């Protein structure tokens, strides 16, 4: 019995090694950098928690974090209700089901940098379909390389376009798992459409929506590629989200120490908020 238990470790070992090399070791490198100062030549000096203090007091970090939170909560507030609404409107059976599903899945299949490039070209005022239409047909002054508002709207619309499908597909999966008898019973009980949504559909979707919100939170909080390709963080710093700022510090300025400290703080925030979300949403499960 006991030997069998010990043998189990051998099966876990490959995964353990893999995780160690692709996650644990790089993370520890970052931890290593975050507590040291370097002046090049591969010479490092102990710096304690100095970088952490600097980052946490830095106005620049606060601004980037603020933008990041604003971005994430805005897209969550749009994508979750919109995704649920679309899922509710989708057909449950028949010819249109696969059509809708494929259409919904399309944005998810496009590589992230392509999404950024697509929207960049799409919104160019002189040649982009949308940009040209807004500026020349409707007469709206729209140029995201000059106006922070236009840049923000574009980043958010792009993310909604790209990721609402994920919420739709998850919510739809939750919806079609509801047996027909629930709807029949609700009709017999005289429930209104709102009551059906509130007491049958929403509770049955709760689990998948929890997952959807968690995934969307983590992904959008760590978003880099699309806004980097689309706006590059500009105009000015107006769409410089946390990850973009981090890359600027780490690779632009090559400030390894502050960048490492920032990464760890970033990581801790993502982890903490995800945990908080999950705990809150599954609290009354028992």
């Amino acid at each position, binding site marked *: 019995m006991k030997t069998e238990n010990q043998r189990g470790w051998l099966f876990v070992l490959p995964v353990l090694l893999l995780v160690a090399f692709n996650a644990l070791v790089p993370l520890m490198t970052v931890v290593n950098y975050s507590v040291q100062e370097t002046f090049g030549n591969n010479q490092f000096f102990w710096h304690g928690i100095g970088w952490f203090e600097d980052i946490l007091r830095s106005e620049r970090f606060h601004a980037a974090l603020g933008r990041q939170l604003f971005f994430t909560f805005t897209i969550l507030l749009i994508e979750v209700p919109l995704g649920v609404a679309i899922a509710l409107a989708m057909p449950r059976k028949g010819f249109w089901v696969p059509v809708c599903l494929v259409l919904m899945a399309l944005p998810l299949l496009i590589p992230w940098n392509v999404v950024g490039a697509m929207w960049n070209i799409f919104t160019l005022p002189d040649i982009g379909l949308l940009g040209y239409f807004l500026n020349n047909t409707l007469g709206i002054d729209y140029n995201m390389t000059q106006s922070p508002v236009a840049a923000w709207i574009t980043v958010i619309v792009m993310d909604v376009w790209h990721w609402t499908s994920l919420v739709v597909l998850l919510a739809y999966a939750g919806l079609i798992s509801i047996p027909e008898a629930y709807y029949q019973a609700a*009709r*017999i009980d005289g429930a209104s459409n709102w009551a059906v949504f509130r007491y049958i559909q929403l509770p049955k979707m709760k689990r998948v929506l929890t997952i959807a919100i968690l995934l969307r939170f983590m992904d959008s909080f760590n978003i880099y590629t699309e806004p980097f390709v689309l706006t590059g963080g500009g105009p000015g710093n107006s769409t410089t989200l946390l990850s973009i700022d981090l890359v600027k510090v780490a690779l632009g300025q090559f400030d390894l120490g502050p960048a490492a400290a920032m990464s760890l703080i970033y990581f801790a925030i993502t982890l903490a908020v995800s945990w908080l979300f999950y705990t809150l949403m599954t609290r009354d499960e028992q």
Partner: protein
Amino acid sequence: MARITLENLRHSYLPDPQGADDYALKEIDLEWNDGGAYALLGPSGCGKSTLLNIISGLLMPSEGRILFDGADVTTLPPDQRNIAQVFQFPVIYDTMTVYDNLAFPLRNRGVDDGRVDARVREIAAMLELDDRLTTRAANLTPDNKQKISMGRGLVREDVNVIMFDEPLTVIDPELKWKLRSKLKELHQETAVTMIYVTHDQTEALTFADQVVVMQDGVIVQIGTPVELFERPQHTFVGHFIGSPGMNILPCEVDGGTARFMGHPVPLEGRVSGNGVRYEIGVRPEHVRLSNAGIPATIRKVADVGRHVVVEAMAGETVVNAVIDGMVPEPGSAVHLDFKQGQTRVYADGWIATERATS
């Protein structure tokens, strides 16, 4: 509460039904009295659930009318028919407490809070759920969930009929019995018309005052449990009800007497029906082993507790007999004797002997 009348009801799931085979329900005429306990019994796919959904309004019949107390409700949606239905799998509102679940149908209809409270407490007491009113319904056992489903029908005072669609499917065997007697009890207390759909003869026969047996979209017999057992109108009923079912034996009929394997078989009465195919129907309970009669060989003996079921071969035909007392050895030769008053001839499946005058 209401008297329910079904008039020339037919239903097909196909948009353009051609022959009789395209209909899930073929010509149903039925009258159910106010306050009765009825069962719809039949094998899977016989159309009983279709019929139930038509009565509740979840399904619109292709042809025919449904009347509640003489008023045509054929085109009314379920919420306007004032009916309640309990489904195969318990349907409860997970996020609500037991109390809110029971109050839901009343609140949807704008009943005032005082009345809701009184009704919910009354029904909860009846269902023995009064100590769990504040529990979340999701945390209950399947049998209690099913009780809530029933309760949501019972709280409405004006409910015309409560329908049960195989409600004990997911209930543990020992609780089935309990819930079944609870149901019977509730029917006596409330006197609401109840229709119980099932393929389980025990459930149907213990619950209902009157059982409607269906096969292939047709009603084959309507009767009390005793009538169905004693004098099945159709070989299907004879075979479907009883354990083991009625012996159905091919026979020849000439001049009002029947012969099985060349032996004359005395019947309950004169053969009056005509058909192409004649069969003798006799329940295993009315087959005796004796010294004279139809020769047979014992093939199997099964002790089922209170009595013994003997399977005998009369030529190529299997005849079951339920025996008390002396049990023959398998392989031994015996003679079979049918109790005259309980032996009938069926012509093309339908009863063809006249009832014995006694």
